[in-house]
């Protein structure tokens, strides 16, 4: 019998939903450039428009506010570089794509509290201290800790000071309701492969009356805001996944499983620390430190046991580095170097949690024995 494989890294990539697989498979069989005027092209264009409506609906935006991109990283770069006359203020726990894009027009880092929530008072002070027009970027929920940020409050503060508000909502849709209108966003990033759609697709939502400086120039695709032949199967798959994500099926069960994992791991290792425990969190994410055991040791041991988790964001180019997120929360080095991220999804079942607890518990017991 093959050893059990337990995938608990859904924040890195969510396996595709069957509806999205079907949509992509069908689209791959069709010829046609959505920008071509003949029948093949028009059919592709129509499919892109249907997907645009689904993606808009997922976050309660208008279809013409959706700019399809190659993914969340490109969308964040487009958003934060798209207003060259504004200084860009990002929270200290943003995804690396937002942190890196912001350095081009750096307006400073907004600190977070120990609980992992953006410090609203500090944001207000920063905006008061510098009257230049600004763009504030704060994520919907953190990819490592799952801590949900007060996006609507950030928008209010930003707008009060004439700033635009960008929300990186890559982690959010499908897990919690995300409403572009209700939180009064100006820009919002979403990603396909985090919600069960294909990799290589994402979108920037741009409030209807805003103009942006495009940075991938080309033809007149996406109404001149993003050049390049539309990734038609990718967009169609993203649309299919968006329809499914709207329903947020299984979200309550996932939260129950996550809470159970948290309870059992904490009981096994009394010194364990749960990051973001005191803040509202995504229902699927658990960031936990096993004191004294480096993250790398944990993920390797879990991998050998067939349990797949991560030591933070996947994007750090394969390196297991210190988490800037936990650092910004003021976690002591001894703790942040021992943290792993466990993220659940649609397919996660109780047996997966048993597998995780068993493997993590075995490692904990081994390290205790060798320390004794």
């Amino acid at each position, binding site marked *: 019998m093959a050893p059990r*494989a337990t995938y608990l*890294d859904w924040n*890195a*990539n*969510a*396996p*595709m939903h069957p509806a999205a*697989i079907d949509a*992509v*498979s069908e689209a*791959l*069989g*069709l*010829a046609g*450039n959505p*920008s*071509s*005027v*003949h*029948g*093949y*092209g028009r059919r592709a264009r129509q499919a892109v428009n249907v997907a645009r409506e689904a993606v808009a609906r997922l976050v309660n935006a208008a279809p013409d506010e959706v700019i399809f991109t*190659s*993914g969340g*990283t*490109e969308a964040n*770069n487009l958003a934060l570089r798209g207003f060259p006359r504004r200084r860009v203020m990002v929270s200290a726990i943003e*995804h690396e*794509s937002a942190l890196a*894009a912001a*350095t081009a027009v750096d307006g400073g880092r907004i600190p977070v509290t120990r609980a992992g929530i953006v410090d609203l008072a500090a944001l207000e002070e920063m905006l008061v201290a510098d009257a230049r027009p600004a763009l504030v970027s704060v994520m919907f929920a953190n990819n490592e800790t799952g801590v949900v940020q007060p996006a609507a409050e950030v928008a209010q503060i930003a707008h009060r000071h004439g700033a635009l508000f960008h929300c990186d909502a890559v982690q959010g849709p499908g897990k919690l309701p995300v409403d572009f209108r209700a939180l009064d966003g100006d820009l919002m990033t979403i990603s396909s*492969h985090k919600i069960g759609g*294909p*990799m*290589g697709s994402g979108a920037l939502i741009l409030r209807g009356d805003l103009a942006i400086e495009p940075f*991938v*120039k*080309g*033809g007149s*695709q996406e109404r001149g805001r993003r*050049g*390049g*032949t539309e*990734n*038609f*199967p*990718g967009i169609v798959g993203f649309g299919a996944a968006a329809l499914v994500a709207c329903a947020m099926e299984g979200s309550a069960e996932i939260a129950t499983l996550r809470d159970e994992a948290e309870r059992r791991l904490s009981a096994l290792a009394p010194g364990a620390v749960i990051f973001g425990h005191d803040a509202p969190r995504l229902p699927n994410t658990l960031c936990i430190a096993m004191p004294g055991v480096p993250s*790398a040791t944990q993920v*390797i041991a879990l991998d050998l046991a*067939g349990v*797949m*988790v*991560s*030591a933070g*964001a*996947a*994007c*750090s*180019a394969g390196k*297991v580095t210190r988490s800037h997120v936990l650092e910004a929360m003021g976690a002591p080095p001894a703790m942040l170097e021992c943290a792993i991220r466990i993220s659940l999804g649609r397919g996660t079942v109780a047996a997966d949690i048993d597998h995780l607890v068993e493997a993590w518990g075995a490692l904990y017991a081994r390290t205790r024995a060798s320390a004794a």
Partner: protein
Amino acid sequence: MTGAIARKPNQPPVYLDYQATTPCDPRVVEAMLPWFTEKFGNPASVTHAYGREAEEAVERARAQLASLIHADPREIVFTSGATESNNLAIKGALRFHRQFGKDHVVTLTTEHKCVIESAHAMAREGFRATFLPVEGNGLVDLGKLAAAIDERTAIVSVMAAHNEIGVIQPVAEVGTLCRERGVLFHSDAAQAVGKIPVDVEAMSIDLMSISGHKIYGPKGIGALYVRRRPRARIAPLIDGGGQERGLRSGTLPTPLCVGLGEAAALAQAEMAEEAPRLLALRQRFLDGIKEKLPRAQLNGDPEQRLPGNLNLSFPGIPALELMAACPGLALSTGSACTAAEVEPSFVLRALGISPELAAASLRIGLGRFSTAAEVDYAVDSLAAAVKRLGAAPMTSALAGTT
């Protein structure tokens, strides 16, 4: 004369737009499918088995693509497509080399819109851009190109094979010239790679854009070849997690990378047979048109062109009307990226073709799934439509090139 087949009522139109996009080869789809379904790891998730399996697949694809163009796998940077690659090459080279006093780009007036737009955007940022006209056959004059390069030129960008008129530029000669003058040579080879031999070593190419969906691979993926020795230095366009050696951040879309790799491997294996087959089809098309419509004329060099491309003018017959009169054919007037625009092709205008004749021109793209029967049907359809539309008194015949 022809053995043209009658089209059945519900048969889809004959696809003659292979320069706009190619269908994804079923073998490519087959190779991609497992990576959409059970093999779903993020290739950057090297902490676990699913991630490493995806990483290996991406690296295999990288090697397949590198092999097609005689490059080292480490010289391949995956992007979202040729448009992004072109943006990255031109903006990245200029931004990086400004610190050395090099702030000038030289390109052609007939380049793809995204190259021209990138150069314009950089000009607005304070860089210099020179747009060099081409000769009447669509080819660059090497003497004029040499004269356009100055001591502050950072990069020369010349398309390998043209998306509208199919002409193949003297890439190796341009490469030699650029190497001698110490400037980077970028080539938008979206239409050339996989269709004709492209060798970055033999052609002294420093940066080269590649597209997935032009070579029977998936949309949403492309690559930029970035030379390692001597190193072509560029600044990244998209920052983030540092994937692709820092030159292009963002989660690598495993299935799309696998699809591009497979498409490259198929092109490499089949090019030697496929190119002459397409050339024969192209000749069959051209011969048929010449026989039935002697006033039609070919735009762009008749010899130095892609095996699967024709660009034909039908004097006095507006292209949009001609396309409407041929519902059994999927045709275009030129680049799909500008298909929504009503202006006649700027490329044909740059060749010195009058606005009237440019507006009476069609691009015919043949490809892997084109057949002789389809060609015969297309020729018959076009000939019948031209004769019908031209039954009204026409303007005098224009001086033809063919």
